[in-house]
């Protein structure tokens, strides 16, 4: 191997390291105080617990803050109201929710409306009855999935 080949491989290795670093630059371990003003505004329901979140949880939340401005005011309000509950769900529950949301998106509009109506009726059931239903239901997706 001559000197040129050695140098060439060194440059390639360096380039690979730089690109890998750039690719993972978005993975964040930022504290609450390091967030931008806009990010803090969106993620304000999580202010108290932000610094205790795991890095990958923060990354997911930052993705939400990134997409937040693309939504209309009604959806933005929904996101803010649901964010706190979302952060308290287990990774397993969140993964289930993602899968079912994907299926929900693919449903025809009449079936979506039917499901919304059913959710309202289900919410009107006494909490004890809903808890019983949950306790009697087997896990749909098997082992918890990691995020």
């Amino acid at each position, binding site marked *: 191997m001559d000197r040129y080949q050695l140098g060439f491989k060194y440059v390639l290795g360096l*380039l690979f390291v730089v690109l890998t670093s750039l690719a993972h630059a978005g993975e964040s371990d930022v504290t609450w105080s390091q967030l931008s003003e806009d990010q803090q505004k969106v993620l304000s329901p999580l202010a108290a617990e932000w610094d205790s979140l795991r890095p990958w949880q923060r990354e997911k939340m930052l993705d939400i803050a990134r997409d937040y401005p693309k939504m209309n005011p009604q959806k933005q309000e929904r996101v803010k109201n649901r964010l706190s*509950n979302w952060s308290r769900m287990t990774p397993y529950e969140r993964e289930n929710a993602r899968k079912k949301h994907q299926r929900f998106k693919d449903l025809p509009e009449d079936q979506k409306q039917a499901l919304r109506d059913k959710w309202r009726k289900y919410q009107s059931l006494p909490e004890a009855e809903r808890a019983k239903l949950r306790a009697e239901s087997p896990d749909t997706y098997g082992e918890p999935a990691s995020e």
Partner: protein
Amino acid sequence: MSRYKDNMTHEKNDNLSTDDIVLDTMVEQQIARHMTDLLNDSAQRLMPHQEQRLTLAHDAAVRYLAEKQAQLQYSNTHTSQGNVVRWFGDHFGQQHRMTSAALVILVMLVTFFAVQQFEVSNNLENSDAFLLASDLPPEAYADKGFDAWIDTN
């Protein structure tokens, strides 16, 4: 002989037709033959130490040539460096190492940005933000009691 060659060179510069080039080649061959004859004649009267030096030089030249050929063969057999560039012809082949390096870096950069672009679009479709903004709250998707209740109603 030198004057003869100078004359031929002068003539070659004046007008280079096909006949001139053929004639020039023939003259070159004649000169070479003449030089060989002179060397052969002189070789008959070499001193032993001169013969030894010539033998050593000959062996060194042969060894150098053999090494060069072996290196070339190894390069062609075991590495493909520059092969891609040869598709583009001899012009690029002149600096094939630099061009190869530039091509490899270009491919790496294009791949990197393509992957980045794919991740961004993929994240857009699967972002949790859109789940949170959905018509149904996340609890509706995660509540296994709701699934069971739907099945019985």
